[in-house]
């Protein structure tokens, strides 16, 4: 049938608000980090740190990931996005919920406003899950990438649910076990369930596309799925019913084995790729995978060490090294193409038109990469040696990274159609 399996990309009005809001949230995030340089040298259960983490997880990470997922779900599920209207509505719930939560944490205003913020994010997660389930169920019967995306959306809902229970507990304590202990479970449901599984699913589809490489070893991904989910389910059940113990390390090991299987799959793609040179988008991506391994290496140190700085380093490499680096790179593999498609689709072949990579300052991407790398490692070393001035320099570099990123995003979003000579 002519036209079968031709992608009908979602409207720009569905996807672009997520990218724009996410970019602004990254600037807010790095500004808050700069303002909170000294609390970063203390413990993680601190109002400013909680505000920073929720800016990173919801305003920045989840915001861009929602937008990218709505664009990429049709590619992964080989089916049109189920409901564009619901996707648009989810944006308002997510941005309002994230804003309420961040402000409430920053000023540590517990109670109804914080619970309302969590509830708005909950609605956004429900709407996202509906779109994922309906889009996934209508397409090709099964692929493991689809399984990861569906699973990640379910975990997001569970993570937000636990978060709301914690928000209630902060104001009206009712949970008999230690609040910080449940907070750890909430954080890891989000990191391993939501972020990791979504990133695994999307990367398993996109990295082969971008590198022109293919792997036939889908079993590596299936094994990764089993290990990651088994480890996480055991962690949550054991943690909730019996409390923390040495068994956490065993469950962590299961998740790590799952991560290793995913990385082995990506290595196989890289070995069979035909596009050899890596551009700066892909360098950002591989730096993010490296940062994830660094974060994992900190887990035993966090467990056995007696300083909270190791937990801060773990968080740094997760939220900045892994999630942020990935988004900083992948944005330029998706956003310019989305805008190009709406501006130039009808002109393709008719006139000389710019390519997607000509819609942003391409050279600035390499500057962004190196400033980001310098910032990340200066912050990490400053946390280890508890050095205040270098920490502020590193945070300043991260703020500069955000400024460069936002300026490039604005350039793409405000692009006007041009015909080249």
């Amino acid at each position, binding site marked *: 049938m002519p036209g079968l399996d031709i992608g009908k990309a979602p409207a720009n009005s569905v996807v672009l608000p997520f990218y724009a809001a996410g970019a602004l949230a990254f600037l807010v995030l790095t500004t808050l980090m700069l303002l909170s340089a000294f609390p970063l040298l203390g413990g993680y259960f601190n109002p400013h740190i909680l505000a920073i983490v929720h800016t990173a997880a919801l305003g920045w990470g989840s915001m861009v990931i929602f937008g990218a997922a709505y664009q990429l779900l049709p590619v992964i599920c080989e089916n049109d996005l189920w409901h564009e209207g619901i996707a648009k509505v989810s944006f308002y719930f997510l941005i309002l919920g994230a804003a309420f939560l961040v402000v409430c944490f920053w000023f540590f205003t517990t109670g109804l406003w914080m619970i309302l913020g969590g509830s708005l994010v909950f609605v956004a997660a429900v709407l996202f899950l509906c779109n994922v389930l309906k889009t996934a169920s209508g397409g090709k019967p099964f692929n493991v990438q689809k399984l990861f995306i569906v699973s990640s959306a379910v975990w997001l809902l569970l993570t937000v649910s636990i978060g709301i229970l914690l928000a209630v507990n902060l104001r009206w304590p009712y949970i008999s076990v230690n609040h910080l202990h449940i907070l750890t479970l909430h954080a890891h449901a989000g990191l391993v369930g939501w972020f990791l599984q979504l990133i695994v699913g999307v990367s398993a589809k996109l990295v082969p596309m971008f590198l*022109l490489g293919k792997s036939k070893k889908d079993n590596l991904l299936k094994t990764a799925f089993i290990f990651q989910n088994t480890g996480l389910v055991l962690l949550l059940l054991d943690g909730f019913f019996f409390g923390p113990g040495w068994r956490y390390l065993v469950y962590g090991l299961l998740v790590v084995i799952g991560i290793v299987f995913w990385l082995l799959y990506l290595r196989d793609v890289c070995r069979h790729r*035909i596009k050899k040179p890596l551009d700066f988008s892909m360098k950002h991506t591989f730096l993010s995978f490296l940062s994830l391994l660094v974060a994992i290496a900190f887990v035993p140190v966090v467990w056995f060490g007696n300083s909270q700085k190791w937990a801060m380093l773990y968080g740094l490499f997760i939220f900045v090294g892994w999630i942020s680096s990935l988004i900083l790179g992948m944005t330029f593999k998706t956003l310019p193409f989305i805008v190009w498609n709406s501006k130039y689709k009808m002109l393709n072949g008719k006139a000389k038109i710019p390519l997607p990579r000509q819609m942003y300052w391409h050279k600035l991407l390499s500057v962004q990469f190196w400033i980001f790398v310098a910032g990340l490692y200066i912050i990490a070393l400053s946390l280890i040696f508890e050095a205040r001035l270098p920490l502020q320099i590193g945070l300043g570099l991260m703020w500069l990274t955000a400024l460069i990123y936002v300026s490039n995003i604005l350039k793409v979003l405000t692009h006007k159609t041009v015909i080249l000579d």
Partner: protein
Amino acid sequence: MEFNINDPHYEMKMNAVTALYNVIDPELFVNIIDLGLVYDLDFSDDAKIKVTMTLSTKHCPLGDAIKQGVTNVLGMAFPERETEIEIVWEPEWNFDMMSPEGRRDLGLD
């Protein structure tokens, strides 16, 4: 894609290929002929050009733009004919289908 010089539509097919060199895959920056995405051109119907082609990825968001590009260039080269495009997935596109020029443009050789 190869054409027989004895094919009565040989010249039109060569003109169509020349026009299709102007359709670029925006992700790879290579034209669709050198990528090997076009499998067949059929001029047997006097009112139509039937293009049989594929895409590098199923449900690719840019697939519609590439298809529009094919309609645009063939519409300009053959204004008296309507362009009909059939997207097929068999044989599945692979890197071996690229021409030496396509591989060079991608920096592979």
